[in-house]
C-alpha cells in the first residue's frame, strides 16, 4: 500500500477515516434519541427541534463551521466552558473535525432513522409488552431489529459525509497537517500548489472509490438486515 501512497496521503486518509468513524460513533446514539423523539413523542417545539436538526443540511457548510467556531471556539460560550471545566479544546484539533463531521452527518442519520421508526409496526411492540417486556427491553429486542436497516443506512451515509466533509471542517478547525488535514482538505491544499495536481487526482480517485464502497456496503447491509427482519433468512 505504501508503494503507491505517500506518507502524507496515507496520513490524510487515515485521519479522514478516524474522524468519520468517531463522528458516527458519537453521533449515532444522539441521532437515535432525537429520531425517537421526533417520531414518537408529541412535545411543544417539535418542529423547532426538527428544523434545528436539518439546519446543517441547508446552511452553507462554511456558515455551519463558522457557527461552530463561534460556539465551540476557545472564546465561545460552550467552548470556553469546556476548556475551563474539562480542559477540552475542540477548535483546530482533530476532535473538532469530528464535531464538524458529526454535525454535518447528523441530519442524514436522523432522517433515515426517523423514517424507519415511523415505519415500525407498533403492534409487535404491543405484543412484546403483553409478554412482560419493559419499555427498554421492547426497544432492544423488537424495535431496534426492525429499524436496523434505517440505522445502518443513516450511519453509512453519515460516515461517507464525514469522510468528505470540507467546508465546516476547514472553517472550524482549519488546515493543519496531521491534525485536521483530512482527505478533502488535502486535495484542496494540493490544488493550491503548482505541482500538486497529480497527487490531487490520486486522492480524488481514492475519495471516489471510498464513497462508492460506502454506498454499496450500506445498500448490501440494509438489504440483508431488511431480509432478516422479515424473517426470510437467518
Amino acid at each position: 500500500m505504501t508503494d503507491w501512497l505517500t506518507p502524507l496521503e496515507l496520513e490524510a486518509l487515515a485521519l479522514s477515516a478516524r474522524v468519520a468513524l468517531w463522528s458516527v460513533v458519537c453521533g449515532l446514539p444522539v441521532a437515535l434519541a432525537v429520531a425517537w423523539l421526533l417520531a414518537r413523542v408529541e412535545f411543544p417545539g417539535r418542529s423547532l427541534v426538527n428544523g434545528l436538526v436539518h439546519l446543517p443540511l441547508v446552511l452553507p457548510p462554511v456558515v455551519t463551521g463558522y457557527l461552530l467556531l463561534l460556539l465551540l471556539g476557545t472564546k465561545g460560550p460552550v467552548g470556553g466552558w469546556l476548556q475551563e471545566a474539562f480542559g477540552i479544546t475542540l477548535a483546530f484539533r482533530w476532535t473538532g473535525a469530528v464535531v464538524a463531521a458529526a454535525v454535518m452527518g447528523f441530519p442524514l442519520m436522523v432522517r433515515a432513522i426517523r423514517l424507519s421508526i415511523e415505519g415500525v409496526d407498533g403492534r409487535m411492540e404491543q405484543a412484546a409488552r403483553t409478554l412482560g417486556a419493559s419499555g427498554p427491553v421492547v426497544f432492544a429486542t423488537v424495535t431496534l431489529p426492525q429499524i436496523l436497516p434505517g440505522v445502518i443506512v443513516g450511519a453509512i451515509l453519515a460516515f461517507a459525509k464525514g469522510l468528505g466533509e470540507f467546508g465546516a471542517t476547514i472553517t472550524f478547525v482549519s488546515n493543519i497537517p496531521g491534525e485536521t488535514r483530512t482527505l478533502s482538505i488535502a486535495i484542496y491544499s494540493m490544488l493550491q500548489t503548482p505541482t500538486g495536481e497529480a497527487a490531487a487526482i490520486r486522492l480524488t480517485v481514492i475519495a471516489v472509490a471510498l464513497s462508492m464502497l460506502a454506498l454499496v456496503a450500506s445498500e448490501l447491509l440494509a438489504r440483508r438486515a431488511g431480509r432478516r427482519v422479515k424473517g426470510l433468512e437467518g
Partner: protein
Amino acid sequence: MSGARLEVDVTKRLGDSVEIAAAFESGPGVTALFGRSGAGKTSLVQMIAGLLRPDRGRIAVGGRVLVDRAAGIDLPAHKRRVGCVFQDARLFPHMTVRRNLLYARWAGGRRGALGLAAVCDLLDLADLLDRRPGALSGGEVQRVAIGRALLADPALLLMDEPLANLDGPRKAEILPFLERLKEEAGVPIVYVSHAMEEVIRLADTMVLIDRGRVAAVGPVEDVTSRLDLRPLTGRYEAGAVVAARVEAHDEAYALTRLSIAEGRELLVPRLRRPVGTTLRIRLRARDVTLTLAAPEGASTLNILPGVVRELAPAEGPFVDVLVDAGAPIWARVTRLSVDRLGLAPGLAVHAVVKAGAIDRASLGRAQ
C-alpha cells in the same frame, strides 16, 4: 389460578360518537365476548391487556386489580400477566419460533408452571421450533402465538378473534387445539369472536356486546336461547344451543343417542365422541317442526313433548317459537301455522326434530 374471576367495569370514549360502557364478571373456563364488528370487543380486550386506558372504571383478575382509575392504579401491560393472542398473531419475524415462544422468559423474566416441552406437546409445535415465522402456515402461526402467550405464565388469556384470518380448513385445524387448551392449560380464557359456531364450541359464559354495552351475560345456552336477543345473536342461522350427554352409540344404524334433559333423548347421526361425554349442540330452528298431537307412523325419530314459552316474529312469513322440552328448543314455523295450530304460550306441543338437525360444526364440549 384456574378459579380466577375476571371483573370488568369500565367506560371509555373513543372518538365523538363511540362510547364503551361495559360491566361484567366471568368465572373460570372460557368467556366469549360476542358481538358484531365494531361493537367494541377489541377495545375491551385492549383495556384488559393494558394497551388502552379506560376513562373510568376498574378491572381485576382473581382479585388482583389491574386498573382502578378512582384508586389511581394502572398496571402497565408488562406487569399485568395477561396473555394475548391477537387476530394477526404478531410473531416477531426476526426470531425463530423457539425464540418467539421463549420471549416472555428471556425478555420478560416470566417463569410459569408450563414449560416449553409441555406447551410444544399441547400445541404440537416441536417440529416448528427452528423455523422462522415467515415460513409457517397461517394455522401454525396462530398455534405458535398461543404457545407464546401461554409461556408468559398468564393469569388470564385473551384471544382476540384468533381464527378470523384463517380459512375454513385452517379453523378446523386449530379448534381442537383450543379445546385441549381449555381443558388442560388451567387458565381462564376470554375469547373474542363474532363467529357463533366458535363461541358455542368453546365458551362456557357468553358476554354479548352491542354498541359498546353489555347486552347480556350468562351461560352460552341461556344467552343464545333468548328470543329477545336474537337480533344480536341471530346473525347466523337461528337455532338453540342445548347441553347434551352421549348415552350410547348404535353402530348397526350409525346413530348416537343423546340425552338433553331428564327422559328427553335425541337420535342423531353417529358422533365420534365417547359415551358419557357432555356436549353442547345447536339445533337449527328450521329443522324443528311442531305438532299438537304426537305423530304416528312418521319417519322422524325424535319427538319431544314440550310447552310453548314464547313466540317472536322472524323474517318474512316465519315466526320463531321457543319450546320448553326439558331444554329450550327453537322451532321456525310460518305465521299461518301459528294461527292454524293456535300456538300460544302455555300450549302443549310436540317438537319434531330431524336427525340431521345438529349443526356439526358447532359441537362443543360443555364443562
